[in-house]
């Protein structure tokens, strides 16, 4: 029992296992609700809510009509996905006694996080989805826009990684001569108790939703919680997947995400054919490409995407407060620019909703998806090998 508790709370979970479960759960969530695991759409609605509080009428903004700005965030299943993720992550952070206010030593990080957050929020919504709806849960919906988005994110991340490497961006660390003392550890442990209180209160919310017949809210809250628990315990970072490949030849996260998407694609296909559902397809257009590049650049600048930001904020990483604010501002500005600045006419109108299931049939769709993922996997391995070969060569020279 003690060993099991240790494994669950004291260690981070294996990302492969976590992303396999997340992939399967997101397919299941789609089967139950016909919607996908996503967060930035709700961020945009939150921006709309705030504007309306400030007296701005956004009811006639086309973007809000498209993503349906109705009710309050706690009466929307997508809202509960977001709050569930925050609460699930916080619960696990507390139960594992790992909450700590973490203030960056480099003050420039706050500016980087805020600016990066705005760019990432804007880009994600321009492309109609972040690394979830246009990536992790977009590929399993066989929506072609997610293929474009992945390539574009890769390009954006590449330039982001280049920027991260420059001295004026990363700053100098505090390298001291000799040994230094670590922080004093508090003997009293109260975090796990707070975590347990949150868990019980949240169970009450779930019971309330299901008992009063609000099934969609209950499912949103339940799956949101599960996703929050998973991404925190697995330290799932979509930003790291591409970025760390470019920066230090690290491939773990990229490989785990690809494996999770493959499993999710197969199960989603099964779900779609059994329940005769219509997959969620988004427009593939120039906006997908541009949005993806901006998103990739923004998440590296901010050190986290809209998903990774959530659990890091709950861990007490203060850097992610400006990132969160930036995400909402960027997404909301995109909603404004959509019709008011003519983005839709310029970049989106000529696009088309293309779904591989319609275009190629179920066998063609799953085969092409798995092939695409296999190519991504091979490229990941190639990049990792290549990086380490170059590193060894340089070391030899030195």
């Amino acid at each position, binding site marked *: 029992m003690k060993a099991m508790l240790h494994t669950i709370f004291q260690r981070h979970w294996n990302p492969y296992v976590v992303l396999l479960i997340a992939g399967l759960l997101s397919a299941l969530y789609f089967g139950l609700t016909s919607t996908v695991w996503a967060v930035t759409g709700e961020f945009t609605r939150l921006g709309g809510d705030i504007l309306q509080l400030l007296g701005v009428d956004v009811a006639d903004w086309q973007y809000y009509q498209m993503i349906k700005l109705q009710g309050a965030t706690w009466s929307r299943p997508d809202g509960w996905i977001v709050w569930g993720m925050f609460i699930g992550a916080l619960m696990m952070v507390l139960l594992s006694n790992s909450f700590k206010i973490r203030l960056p030593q480099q003050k420039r990080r706050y500016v980087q996080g805020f600016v990066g957050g705005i760019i990432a929020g804007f880009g994600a919504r321009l492309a109609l989805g972040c690394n979830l709806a246009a990536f992790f849960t977009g590929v399993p919906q066989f929506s072609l826009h997610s293929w474009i988005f992945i390539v574009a994110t890769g390009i954006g991340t590449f330039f982001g990684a280049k920027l*991260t490497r420059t001295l004026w961006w990363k700053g100098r660390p505090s390298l001291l001569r*000799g040994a230094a003392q670590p922080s004093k550890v508090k003997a009293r442990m109260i975090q796990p108790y707070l975590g347990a209180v949150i868990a019980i209160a949240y169970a009450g919310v779930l019971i309330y939703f299901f008992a009063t017949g609000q099934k969609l809210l209950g499912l949103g809250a339940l799956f949101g919680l599960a996703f929050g628990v998973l991404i925190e315990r697995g330290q799932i970072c979509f930003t790291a997947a591409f970025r760390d490949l470019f920066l230090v030849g690290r491939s773990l996260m990229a490989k785990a995400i690809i494996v999770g998407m493959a499993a999710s694609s197969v199960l989603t296909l099964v779900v779609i054919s059994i329940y005769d559902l219509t997959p969620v397809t988004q427009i593939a257009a120039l906006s997908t490409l541009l949005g993806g590049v901006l998103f990739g650049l923004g998440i590296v600048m901010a*050190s986290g995407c809209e998903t990774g930001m959530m659990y890091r904020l709950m861990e007490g990483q203060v850097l992610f407060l400006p990132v969160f604010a930036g995400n909402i501002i960027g997404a909301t500005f995109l909603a404004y620019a959509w019709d008011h600045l003519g983005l839709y006419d310029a970049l989106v109108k000529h696009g088309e909703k293309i779904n591989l299931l319609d275009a190629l049939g179920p066998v063609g769709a799953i085969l092409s998806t798995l092939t695409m993922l296999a190519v991504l996997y091979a490229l990941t391995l190639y990049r990792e090998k290549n990086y380490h070969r170059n590193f060894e060569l340089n070391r030899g020279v030195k």
Partner: protein
Amino acid sequence: MQANKEADFTLDLRGESCPYPVIYTLEALQGMKKGELLQVITDCPGSFRNVPEEAIAHGYTFAQEPVKNGQEYLFYIYA
């Protein structure tokens, strides 16, 4: 737990978020002479895994097992 050998350098990364702990650690190790000992103090949960794994992947060795100290980790790595 104390390192058998006093660290030659300490990289205090408390507060820094990923990817900077990994970048800083690898750069510090690259700038040190072979055999010198680096102590890394970090509290970014992502770095608990990627710092030791990348240090090893880049050919460095650990002087001792990582030490968990409350909400932070201490690493002792030979350049």
